[in-house]
C-alpha cells in the first residue's frame, strides 16, 4: 500500500511538471499579450512594448520558464502581470473559495445521487425509476447558465430568499447556506443525473450477481444483503466518476462563478489565459491539477478499502 501511494505521488509530480511545460508552450500561440491587456487596444505599440519589457515577457519562453521554475521551487510564485499583485496569496484565496463552494455542492450531490440511484435500482422498471431517470437526464441537459439564471430570477430577485450575487460566506452556518445554496444547485443538476445513473447501473449489476443470490438464499436479511454485498460492489464505478468530477468542481466552475459573481479560481484561470498572465495561469492550473491528482489518489485508496483485490495486488 505504501509503495502504491508513493508511486502515485511520483506520477502526480511528473504530471504537474508536464502540465506546466505545456501551459508555457501554449502561451506562445495565445493571441494578445499582458501589456496589451493592461493598456487596452488604444495604447500605442511602443507603450505596450515598454510595459512588456517591465514584465519581462519580451524574453524567450524557455528563459521565462526556467526563471519561473526556479522561483516556484524557492517558494516565490511571482507577481501577476495584469494585477500587479503576488500570485500565491491571490491563488490560495481563490482556491479556498472554490473549494468551499465545491465541498458544499459535493455534500449535496453525493449522498443525494447515491441514495436515489440505489432507490432507482431497487425500483427498476417501475414509475419511480423512470421518473428519476428522465428527471436526471433533463437536468443534465440543462446548461448551468440557464438553470442558474432561472434560480436567480425566482429565488433571489422575485422571492428574495437568497442574495443575487454570492459572496464568500462567514463561518456562520446560516450564512454558508444563504450564500452557497443557489450556486450549488446548478451543479447538483449537472452531476446528479450522471452519478445517479452510474450508481443505478452498478446496483442493478450487483443485484443480479451470483453472490447476491447466494447471500439472499443463505437467509441474510435484505438490508444486510444490500449494505454488505450490493453497495460495496455497486459503488466502485461511482467512486471513479465522483473523483473525476472533483477537478470540474474546483477548476471548471467558470460559468457558475461568473453568474453568481463568486470569487473562485475558475474565472481567475480564464482571465489569466485570456490576458496571457502566465504566472497566474500557471499557478491556477498547477493547483487545480494537484487537486485533481489528489482526488484520484483518494479514490484509488477508497477503492482499495472497498475492493481487497486492488489492496492485495498493491501490497504484493
Amino acid at each position, binding site marked *: 500500500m505504501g509503495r502504491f501511494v508513493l508511486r502515485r505521488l511520483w506520477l502526480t509530480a511528473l504530471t504537474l511538471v508536464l502540465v506546466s511545460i505545456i501551459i508555457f508552450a501554449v502561451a506562445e500561440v495565445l493571441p494578445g499579450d499582458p501589456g496589451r491587456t493592461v493598456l487596452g487596444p488604444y495604447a500605442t505599440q*511602443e507603450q505596450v512594448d515598454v510595459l512588456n519589457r517591465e514584465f519581462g515577457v519580451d524574453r524567450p519562453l524557455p528563459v521565462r520558464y526556467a526563471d519561473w521554475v526556479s522561483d516556484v521551487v524557492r517558494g516565490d510564485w511571482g507577481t501577476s502581470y495584469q494585477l500587479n499583485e503576488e500570485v500565491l496569496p491571490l491563488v490560495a484565496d481563490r482556491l479556498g473559495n472554490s473549494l468551499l463552494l465545491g465541498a458544499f455542492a459535493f455534500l449535496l450531490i453525493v449522498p443525494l445521487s447515491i441514495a436515489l440511484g440505489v432507490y432507482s435500482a431497487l425500483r427498476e422498471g417501475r414509475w419511480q425509476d423512470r421518473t428519476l431517470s428522465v428527471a436526471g437526464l433533463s437536468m443534465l441537459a440543462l446548461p448551468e447558465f440557464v438553470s442558474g439564471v432561472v434560480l436567480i430570477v425566482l429565488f433571489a430577485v422575485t422571492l428574495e430568499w437568497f442574495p443575487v450575487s454570492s459572496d464568500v460566506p462567514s463561518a456562520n452556518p446560516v450564512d454558508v447556506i444563504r450564500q452557497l445554496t443557489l450556486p450549488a444547485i446548478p451543479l447538483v443538476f449537472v452531476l446528479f443525473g450522471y452519478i445517479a445513473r452510474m450508481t443505478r447501473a452498478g446496483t442493478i449489476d450487483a443485484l443480479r450477481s451470483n453472490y447476491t443470490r447466494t447471500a439472499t438464499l443463505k437467509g441474510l436479511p435484505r438490508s444486510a444483503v444490500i449494505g454488505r454485498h450490493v453497495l460495496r460492489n455497486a459503488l466502485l464505478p461511482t467512486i471513479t466518476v465522483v473523483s473525476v468530477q472533483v477537478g470540474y468542481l474546483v477548476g471548471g466552475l467558470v460559468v457558475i462563478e461568473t453568474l453568481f459573481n463568486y470569487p473562485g479560481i475558475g474565472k481567475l484561470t480564464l*482571465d489569466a489565459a485570456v490576458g496571457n498572465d502566465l504566472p497566474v495561469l500557471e499557478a491556477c492550473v498547477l493547483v487545480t491539477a494537484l487537486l485533481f491528482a489528489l482526488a484520484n489518489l483518494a479514490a484509488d485508496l477508497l477503492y482499495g478499502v472497498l475492493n481487497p483485490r486492488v489492496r492485495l495486488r498493491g501490497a504484493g
Partner: protein
Amino acid sequence: MIEDYRIHLVEEVRAGRMSRRDLIRRGSVYGLSFSAIGTLLSACGSDPSKPSGGTPAQSDEVKEGAFRKGGTARIGNITPAGDLEPLTMNDGGTVMTVQLACEYLCFPDPDLTLKPRLATEWSPGASPKEWSLTLREGVKWQDGSPMTADDVVASFQRYTDPKGTASALSSFTGILSKGGVEKVDDSTVRFTLDRAYADFPYLVSALNYATPILPKDYEPGDFRKGGVGTGAYVLEQYTSKRGATFRRNDGYWGEAPHLDGVEVTYYGEAAPMVLAMQGGNLEMIPGLGFKDAQSLRSQDDIQLFSNPSSSYRPVHLRVDTAPFDKKELRQALALGLDREAIIGSLLGGTAELGNDHAFAPIFPVSPDGEAVPQREQDIEGAKRLLGEAGHEGGLQLELQTLQYEDIPQLAVLLKEQLKAIGVDLKLNLMTQEAYFGSGDNQPWLEVPMGIVYWASRGAPSQLIAPAYLSDGVWNSAHWKNPEFDQLVQDLDAEVDEGKRTQLARDAATLMQDETPALIPYWLKELRAIQQGFQGVAPGPNVVLDPARMGFAA
C-alpha cells in the same frame, strides 16, 4: 481676445447661425463663467433662433428632491482588465472606480458643456495655441496637504511622457508634448500647445478620462493603496477583480458629500450585474450596453437614463487595397444600407443616424442634414455604382470583426442588407484579444474590411485625429487625404464659429464622399439608477461625478 470672442458669440446667435444652447457649450469651452454666459444670452435677445448644426437629442431629464444624509451606495461595474491604476486606465470599471477619489481640471455636463472643477477659470492666450488655467484655492489631497500648481504640472508631464505607459499619451499626440505645461504662479498653469487647438479644455476634462490630477510625487501603484486624490470619497480597500470600498472625504473642498461611503462591486459579465440591479442589490450601474439593459426596462423601480454620445462602430474599408480602392464600391456599400432598419432591429430605435462622416450629432459643429444630406438606402444607385467599379454582377467580400456588444449582430445585418445589391459578405468573428492582437499582428488595423468600437470623445478632432488623419495611429481604413487633414487642422485652430461650421461642413462632405468607413449609427449610452438614488447626471458614459450623489430623503 476673449472679449472679441464674447462679441462674436452674441453676433452668431443674433444672426441665427448658432443656437443659444451652442453658445452655452462653446462659451464654456472658452472658460466663460456662467454669469458671463448669462449676460451674453440676455444680450442675444429673447428669441431662441434656429438651432444650428446637428441638434443633439436631449439627454433624459433628471428629477431630484431633498437628500438624506448618510448611507452607502453600491455601484456595479465590469471587472477591470488590469490593476487599479489611474496612469494606465482604459476601461469603464477602472475609470469609474478612480473617479470616486480623483478629480479633473474641468468636468462635462451630459451635453458637453464644460464646468469648472479643480480649475476655476481658463482662457486661451492670443491664439488657442496657448491656454492658461486658474486653479481652485483650498483644494486638499486626502492626506491633508494642499494641492498646488506643481501637482498639476507633474500630472501632465507624466501623461505626455513618450517613454511612459500613460494611457492619455495618444490623446495628446501632436497637440501637447512633454514640457508644454508650466507653472506661472501657485494658482496658475499655462499650456503651450504644439498647434492651435480650440477644443483644448476637453482634453483636460473628465472626457479625456485618463487625465486625473495626481500628486507630484505619485508613483504607479500608489492609488490602489488608498488615500490618493482630491475627490469626495477616499479609497479604503481594493480587492482585485472583486471590488473596492470608499468612505466620505470629510476634508472635501466642495459641499459635504451626502453618503457615508461607496461600495464598488466588479462583475465578470453584464448579466449577473443586471440581475443584481433587478434584485435591488445595487444602487447604480454607471455604464450599460443596450442589450444588457433590456431586462431593466420593464421595472418601475429602476430608472434607465440614455444620453447621446459620440460612441460608434465604424465599418472601415481599406482604401489602399483592392477592391476597396475603388471609391464607387465604397459608396455603393454605403447606399446599400438601410440605417433606420439597423437602428430599429439592433438598438430598438435608440441611436442617432450615422452619415458616414465623423462629426457626431452631439458635437456643436456637426453639420445638419441640409448641409450634408443624409445617406439613405438606394438599391438602384448602389447597383449602378457597383457596375462603375467593375463589379456588375456583384462580388464577394470578407468582413472581419470582433465579438463585442452590438457588433456581431451589426455584421449579420450588413450581410443581410448587402445581399440586395449583390454583395455576398462573408463574416469572420474573432475574440477581442485576437482581433486587437499585438506587435506585428494587429488584425483590426490590417484587414480589408472590419468593424471596431470607439468610446465617446469630447471634441470632433479627438475622434478624427487617430482614426482618419494621414498620420493617425489607428487609421484602420488607411485613408490618407491631405485636403481632409488640412480642413481638420484648420478647424482645430479656428475660433470663429461661422468658419468652424463651414470647415466642419467641408470636412464632413469630403469624408462622406470618400467613404473610408460606413458609419451606420451613433450610440446612446445608458446608465441605470435605482429609484430613490439621485444626484448623478445621466452621462456622459465614461464619466461619473460622485460629489453630489446620495439617497432621497
